[in-house]
């Protein structure tokens, strides 16, 4: 009996392992290990934790680590400024392609007006039934978002919103729709440091 090899590992096992990695490993390292690992990174179930917070989406004289490695690896010379519409399509794409999604963190510099993509995110909750953690910059219709999460995401654990207006309506929606909830974090106003508002932690 020959020893099992990592490159011949069963596809289900590879996906179970890769689903625990994030964007950075899945894009920059794993595909280059060997062909079978590359193929497993193309399976939607490998993409369960999408944290775009480190990704810069605009041209700049300075790119942080992840963005510059991404550009190097894939020979991207300049990042195009993405219009709102494009992000909407990206979200739609993620909604369709990543049914196993558990974590979603949207990039901080996505355009985010009342009609922006972050506003539309509530429309995708029905596709992400495994979602556990969501982080947004802004949220204009928290009540509706919470309603959708309550209906579709049974394992949901935590919601973070960078700048949220939490009034009486929103607070009661949190209590009503997310009773099993491990946490809500938000900095309500503009703070220097990113820190969760104590009032809502541990709800």
């Amino acid at each position, binding site marked *: 009996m020959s020893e099992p090899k*990592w490159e011949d590992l069963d596809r289900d*096992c590879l996906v179970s*392992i890769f689903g625990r990695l994030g964007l950075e490993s899945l894009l920059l390292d794993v595909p280059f290990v060997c062909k079978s690992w590359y193929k497993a990174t193309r399976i939607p179930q490998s993409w369960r934790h999408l944290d775009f917070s480190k990704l810069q989406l605009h041209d700049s004289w300075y790119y942080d680590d992840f963005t510059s490695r991404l550009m190097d690896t894939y020979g991207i010379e300049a990042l195009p400024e993405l219009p709102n519409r494009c992000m909407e399509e990206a979200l739609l794409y993620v909604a369709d392609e990543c049914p196993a999604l558990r974590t979603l963190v949207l990039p901080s510099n996505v355009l985010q007006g009342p009609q922006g993509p972050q506003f539309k995110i509530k429309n995708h909750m029905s596709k992400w039934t495994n979602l556990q953690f969501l982080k947004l910059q802004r949220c204009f219709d928290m009540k509706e978002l919470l309603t959708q999460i309550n209906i579709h995401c049974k394992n949901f654990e935590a919601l973070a919103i960078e700048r949220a207006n939490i009034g009486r309506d929103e607070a009661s929606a949190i209590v009503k729709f997310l009773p099993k909830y491990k946490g809500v974090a938000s900095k309500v106003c503009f703070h220097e440091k990113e820190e969760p508002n104590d009032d809502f932690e541990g709800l």
Partner: protein
Amino acid sequence: MASAPENEKNASAPEKKTLTLKSMINNEEFVVDEHVALQSVTIKNMVDSDCAGDVIPVPTISGEILALVIEYCKNHANPSASEDDLKKADAGIVAKDIYTLIDLVLAANFLDIKGLLEVTSQKIADSIKDLPHQDVREIFGVENDYTPEEEAAVRAEHDWAFEGFP
């Protein structure tokens, strides 16, 4: 089904039902309480559909690995174990070299034991995370099967980012 005298015996001295799991690699046998073994969905399906004889043969899993799997199942079948205890015990089970972990992840997948598959996958993922692919290859003993041209093609491939966009 059980005959009448056996039923009587069970009634007077309720015995725990056991199953024997046998590694087909080195013929090692393990006698396990049924409720412990039934954490494996594969074994449960066999028992439920009456496909399991006195001895359940387990192909492709060595005795050494089967012992680890059974240790995991025993821990998790113990109702008085706290979450903390289980975490510590799980960490002990997966604190193995990379060649044991591949056997363990295959066994967990084959026997369909969700929790064990999760902790083993997490342990393996932790040793891949944030490492350049050259290091991953070395640690996992993976042979590079890319030709330089193929690797360049993967690198040049960023069309994926625009898939689905008009």
